[in-house]
């Protein structure tokens, strides 16, 4: 359908939930905790690596008001992956609910459930633990084959071969090569090498992790939880606790942000066990310190790029080596690692040879997990700074080098077929790729020609620009499935139940718009409920930039089916042939008579051939069309203090049709600022014993209103034929460019390249001193 004919999709539409949230309605997980719920608190390890020799909980259990204490001795000893992914698990199965080993400062030791917070806290202090201290591994560069083995225990495994070698501290390994990289590099006119490191960024979503549980009127376990993956969670939880799947119901209310951090398990096992053991409702909320120190982070990585090109600026080969730190447990170890290659290297698809590989190692740090960008941001930072280095060496402008070598519409990359997420990928041609437009338009918006590389604007003030390009994906082909059901109300309005997991990104709004568009109605006639494992159809959840594309396609199919069913009913009622019925969303017209949708709905509900019309459709992708973008920043830097500020960040994005232009802009800008935080201020600090020091909003600085003055965001006119109304994903693409863009802009300003994030004034000053 041409965009000009769209009435709801691609049009400014308010979110379905924003008003209720601002007006303070009780819509989040903690607001649903049953009155009088037991309060769960966790005793956490003060040591980076230790074996629990003895644990005595008798005093805690004897405390008045304590109802349950859990340790590794009294919970099921079944290995699982907390990652919240599909089956078979593409992450190592290396975690027990509670274990006799603790592997990082903040790891779980024992859980207390008591009648109030104070008693729970007091009880924690009464638990006596005798630790045998073990030598921790606190530097991921020394983890491989270190004599200190982080996972010496039995019973852990991999669901398929992923190079999982726990005795060598290796969670996963991956290698691939297309063509002969070494040979092609040896024939290139110019070869550059570049290595850089990125840190364990914190998601820092505003709502801390929390869950609550109770037994319902069927004596089934009901868990409210702020999760991105309710259906995966039900599968993993019931399997690990040896419960029938149908005895557990997981409900996801509004979620206060996730960014990947809520894909995995946090409190769910504990509230489940407490409520099953005591029969009482229970609740658990992480403190902010626990959110920082005891959940998951981005995988820190050291990545090296070797890029070869000819003098004419044609890039011939890329060799990418990476080392990733998954921390104490291997959630998303393999899949994040593979994305460093698969959603970064195809940007330069004209190479004759490309190679990617390396390993993911265990350390005694906070575990890493899924985080928006998911390997692509780490890879993009190093590739897109390397491309600037290459451009300088070739005396070609960074823009021209990218225009010449980057992906174009109708092209492909052999990487797509070889690399998927954990397994093989699927071949695909770029049916939509407006990257050249994005690059040119971005340059225009930032005023590149006038500002590159720098302008002196004061005695010790410089303004400079930097740029980078990026790609992501739209769901995982042949793995991610989403579904929607639509039922007709007796007044002709619709109720949609969708498995798609709205975690604040706005998927409920987007799916409502898709359904309203297809049924030729308005959003106020469509009510949506999402993600309740009992009441909504299956969906893998909110991850891998899949919701608009996968769940959106499912909703579109369901709406198409609903339309067919309505026309069939109208034909029967009007005594006409289906092909003679014209439906405009409100009225069914046959040759001689007509009926409105509300009248039809009433008639089939209350008289003659009575029935409920409801449809369910599912969708899984055969391809994963990448969104593309060009990012440009203008910064101002003080050459005395090297303090810098962001003047403007220009994003020009090709995400196909924007189902909701305002929400799409919100996704891009939120990603940009989260990526800018990683690039600029979000320093991760551990002490020498492995304790995370950057564990609060005062020691870990995320961007505030002060840092962000101007963001300029535009969308390319693009249409992907496989997406709903031409849409691709937009949830992650925004986060990928800021580290490289900022690094390039700093280099263009003062001539030093900061090769470890975040880029602080101290590091710039040190680099300048070292250069002199």
């Amino acid at each position, binding site marked *: 359908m041409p965009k000009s004919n769209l009435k709801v999709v691609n049009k*400014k539409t*308010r*979110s379905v*939930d*924003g*008003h*209720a*949230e*601002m*007006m*303070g*309605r*009780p*819509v*989040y997980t*903690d*607001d649903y905790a049953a009155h009088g719920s037991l309060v769960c608190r966790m005793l956490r390890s003060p040591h980076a690596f230790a074996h629990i020799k003895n644990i005595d909980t008798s005093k805690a259990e004897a405390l008045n008001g304590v109802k349950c204490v859990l340790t590794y001795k009294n919970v099921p000893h079944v290995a699982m992956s907390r990652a919240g992914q599909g089956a078979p698990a593409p992450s190592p199965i290396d975690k027990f609910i509670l274990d006799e080993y603790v592997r990082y400062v903040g790891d779980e030791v024992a859980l207390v459930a008591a009648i109030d917070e*104070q008693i729970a806290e007091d009880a924690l202090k009464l638990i006596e633990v005798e630790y045998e201290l073990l030598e921790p591994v606190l530097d991921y560069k020394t983890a491989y084959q270190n004599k200190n083995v982080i996972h010496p225990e039995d019973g852990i495994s991999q669901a398929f071969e992923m190079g999982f070698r726990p005795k060598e501290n290796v969670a996963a390994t991956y290698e691939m090569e297309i063509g002969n990289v070494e040979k092609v590099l040896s024939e290139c006119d110019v070869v550059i090498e570049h290595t850089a490191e990125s840190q364990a960024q914190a*998601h*820092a*979503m*505003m*709502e*801390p992790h929390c869950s609550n549980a109770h037994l319902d009127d069927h004596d089934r376990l009901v868990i409210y939880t702020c999760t991105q993956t309710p259906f995966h969670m039900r599968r993993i939880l019931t399997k690990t606790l040896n419960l029938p799947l149908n005895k557990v119901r997981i409900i996801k209310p*509004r*979620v*206060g*942000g*996730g*960014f990947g951090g809520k894909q995995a398990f946090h409190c769910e096992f504990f509230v489940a066990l407490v409520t099953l053991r005591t029969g009482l409702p229970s609740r658990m*909320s992480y*403190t*902010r310190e626990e959110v920082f120190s005891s959940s998951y982070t981005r995988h820190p990585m050291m990545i090296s790029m070797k890029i070869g090109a000819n003098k004419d600026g044609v890039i011939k080969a890329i060799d990418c080596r990476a080392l990733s730190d998954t921390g104490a447990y291997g959630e998303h170890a393999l899949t994040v690692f593979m994305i460093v290659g698969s959603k970064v290297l195809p940007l330069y698809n004209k190479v004759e040879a490309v190679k990617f590989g390396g390993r993911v190692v265990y350390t005694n740090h906070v575990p890493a997990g899924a985080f928006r960008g998911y390997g692509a941001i780490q890879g993009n930072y190093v590739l897109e700074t390397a491309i600037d280095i290459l451009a300088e060496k070739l005396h070609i402008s960074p823009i021209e080098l990218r225009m010449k070598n980057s992906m174009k519409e109708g092209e492909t990359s052999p990487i797509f077929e070889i690399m998927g997420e954990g397994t093989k990928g699927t071949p695909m041609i770029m049916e939509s790729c407006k990257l050249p437009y994005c690059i040119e338009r971005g340059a225009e918006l930032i005023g590149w020609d006038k500002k590159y590389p720098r302008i002196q604007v004061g005695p010790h003030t410089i303004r400079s620009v930097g740029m980078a390009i990026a790609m992501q994906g739209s769901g995982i082909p042949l793995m991610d499935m989403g579904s929607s059901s639509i039922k007709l109300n007796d007044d002709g309005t619709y109720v949609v139940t969708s498995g798609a997991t709205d*975690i*604040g*990104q*706005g998927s409920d709004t987007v799916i409502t718009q898709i359904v309203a568009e297809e049924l030729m109605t308005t959003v106020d006639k469509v009510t949506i409920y999402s993600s309740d494992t009992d009441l909504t159809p299956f969906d893998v959840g909110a991850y891998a930039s899949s919701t608009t594309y996968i769940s959106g396609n499912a909703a579109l199919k369901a709406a198409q089916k609903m339309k067919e069913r309505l026309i069939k009913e109208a034909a029967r009622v009007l005594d006409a042939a289906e092909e003679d019925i014209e439906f405009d969303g409100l009225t069914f017209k046959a040759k001689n008579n007509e009926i409105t949708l509300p009248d039809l709905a009433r008639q089939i509900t209350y008289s003659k051939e009575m029935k409920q019309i409801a449809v369910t459709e599912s969708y899984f992708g055969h391809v994963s069309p990448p969104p593309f973008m060009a990012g440009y920043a203008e910064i101002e830097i003080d050459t005395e203090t090297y303090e810098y500020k962001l003047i403007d960040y220009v994003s020009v994005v090709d995400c196909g049709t924007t189902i*909701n*232009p*305002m*929400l799409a*802009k*919100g996704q891009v*800008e*939120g*990603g*940009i*600022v*989260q990526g800018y935080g990683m690039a600029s201020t979000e320093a991760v600090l551990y002490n020498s014993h492995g304790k995370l020091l950057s564990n*609060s*909003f*005062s020691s870990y600085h*995320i*961007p*505030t*209103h*002060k840092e*962000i003055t*101007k*963001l300029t965001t535009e969308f390319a006119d693009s249409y992907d034929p496989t997406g709903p109304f031409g849409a691709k994903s937009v949830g992650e693409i925004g986060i990928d460019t800021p580290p490289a863009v900022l690094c390039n802009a700093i280099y263009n300003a003062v001539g030093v390249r900061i090769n470890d994030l975040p880029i602080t004034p101290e590091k710039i000053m040190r680099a300048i001193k070292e250069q002199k």
Partner: protein
Amino acid sequence: MEVRFVLNRTEVVLNVRPDEYLAETLRNQGVLSVHIGCNESNCGTCTVLINGKPSMSCSVLTAQVYGKTVTTVEDIQEEANKIADYFSDEGADQCGFCLVGFALVVHALALEYPNPTDEEIKNYLVGNLCRCSGYHAQMEAVKKYLAEVKKHAKK
């Protein structure tokens, strides 16, 4: 201990622990609009107005509000609804966990500063964090809301 204060225009007398913070007291009273995001006065999701001034209720002892007035978003529903219009129109609302805090600070800002500069707005909002929006759309929404308030004030 007994604490007496005015909560959303109703005088309440509550029995609280001496070490109890206002955010916990309010949530225990069923005022669930008050979100606890960090419990150390860094994020702003627990914002309430104490005698009209934005305050982080996670770090104010309930005993400290003795004799004062405490306003939560439940008491400024009309204004919150209006501010939500502007946030929604700019696409500045995502997960929503920070929005109650923003409704209260933006409302207080409008009352305190009839003609704020961008810098003054930022200084006023800096204690309220948002990890979703990127802030730019929020800023646009706030400025449009303030312009509207000013227009009505003139009439």
